[in-house]
């Protein structure tokens, strides 16, 4: 018995030491990983297409959309507002330290408004909303999956894509640009407050410098980005919740995965969109 086991293990050792097998194993791991990665991408793409399709085809659930607009939009206002305010303030403070060395204080207003509208407001708002909304969507839909409420929807002849997913995707995609626009205003205001009350700029010249440098496309590019990020956050929340594994642990994992994957996708998408808009 023991000899048999010993023989087995020595055979195993010999097999894994064999260079051909080692290389094959290597391919197997890499290939297996690659295949499941591609499968996940495929599933996600299919899910996104399905979710989009259901956003534009009846029946619609206006009361569900309204509810999500309040949940996703209105209740995210404090978080996005605070983020924008302090980011604008810190931007003014930091650029002052740098720019005084080159006697370029007059550029501060421009730096603040451009960084806020083009990059910081959409990305930071996207990330904050991913944490707040993405997590709660995944937890809610995941719980509904685990407690068979999604099955119950289907037995009552209601398509869960139309009733649960489409309203969240619509609300997410519409509300994030609005949140970012508000964030733009609050962020610029933050920079203004620090520049006027702490750094001693004159209000009139700060505002005129802000207006001078700002172009239509700076704001619009930020809002397009925000729409894309809102779509990403709501779809990732729905996707992970919808395919949540069973049990409380499954819902927990779905929540974490929704936030992490949405955040990473936002950063990747931000780079791609910046390249598209400004080159």
């Amino acid at each position, binding site marked *: 018995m023991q000899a048999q086991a010993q023989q087995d293990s020595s055979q195993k050792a010999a097999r894994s030491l064999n260079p051909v097998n080692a290389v094959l194993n290597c391919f197997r791991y890499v290939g297996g990983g690659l295949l499941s990665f591609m499968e996940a991408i495929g599933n996600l793409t299919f899910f996104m297409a399905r979710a989009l399709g259901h956003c534009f085809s009846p*029946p619609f659930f206006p009361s569900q959309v309204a509810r999500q607009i309040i949940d996703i939009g209105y209740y995210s206002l404090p978080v996005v507002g605070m983020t924008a305010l302090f980011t604008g303030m810190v931007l003014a403070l930091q650029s002052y330290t740098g720019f005084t060395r080159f006697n370029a204080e007059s550029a501060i207003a421009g730096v603040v408004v451009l960084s806020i509208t083009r990059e910081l407001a959409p990305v930071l708002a996207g990330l904050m909303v991913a944490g707040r909304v993405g997590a709660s969507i995944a937890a809610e839909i995941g719980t509904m999956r685990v407690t068979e409420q999604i099955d119950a*929807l289907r*037995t*009552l002849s209601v398509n869960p894509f139309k009733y649960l997913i489409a309203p969240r995707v619509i609300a997410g995609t519409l509300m994030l640009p609005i949140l970012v626009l508000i964030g733009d205003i609050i962020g610029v205001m933050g920079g203004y407050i620090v520049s006027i009350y702490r750094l001693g700029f004159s209000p009139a010249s700060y505002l005129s410098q802000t207006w001078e440098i700002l172009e239509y496309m700076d704001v619009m590019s930020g809002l397009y980005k925000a729409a894309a990020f809102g779509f990403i956050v709501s779809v990732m929340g729905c996707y992970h919740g919808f395919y949540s594994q069973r049990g409380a642990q499954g819902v927990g994992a779905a929540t974490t995965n929704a936030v992490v994957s949405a955040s990473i996708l936002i950063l990747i998408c931000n780079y791609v969109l910046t390249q598209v808009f400004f080159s």
Partner: protein
Amino acid sequence: MSGAANDSSDNKIVLSGLCKAFGKNEILRGIDLAVPRGKSMVVIGGSGTGKSVTLKCILGLLEADSGSIQVDGHETMALKGADRDELMKKFGMLFQGGALFDSLKIWENIGFGLIHGQKVSKKQAREIAIEKLQDVGLKPEVAELFPAELSGGMQKRVSLARAIATKPEIIFFDEPTTGLDPIMADVINELIVKCVKQLGATALSITHDMASVRKIADYVAMIHEGRIIWCGPVADLDRSGNPYVDQFIHGRADGPITNHTRF
């Protein structure tokens, strides 16, 4: 094999050779079952033998791997989209855990299928919901509460009300009495019998509560290792001559069913 009537026109649901596996885990290995029209069939069997999976395959919530599912003589395995939604209107289901929508009030839960599936107005749906609440022995005041505010027994009653509100032709009950005290279990059993009679519906229930079986069943089928191993009228249950059935209905630890030792 099935003791129920074999003439297909008399059967509401006919399953043949139904198979379902999750990965390598073969749960259903060829289920053959005929549910006679207007009768109450109860499926018994141990935990984890695939009773819920069978119901979910019939409803199309899970996709079976092979076999056939006929409802009213029509094959339904391949139905998708609008055809599936249409078929769903024939079914009502009481889920094992209740599965009430916890973001909606009780009356909205009960009226959900009416409002969204049958385009009944909200006001009318609310009236029907309150009527159904009374049918299952709950006060109209309950209508304004949320599911989390109710006890387990009350939630089961509300689920029952939701399952029957759309007047389905076929109702599935997945362990309707599990987790309830014996008196509440008996109340639910009586409600099931009453509601099914009232609607003239065909019922397919799952349970491992023998008191419940004797109360609600016209026919009994026993599932074991992915197959139906016995099926017959409830009157024959005690003289089935099947050692598996005998072990199950008497709840003995020793006998031919030895699955439990593996866990």
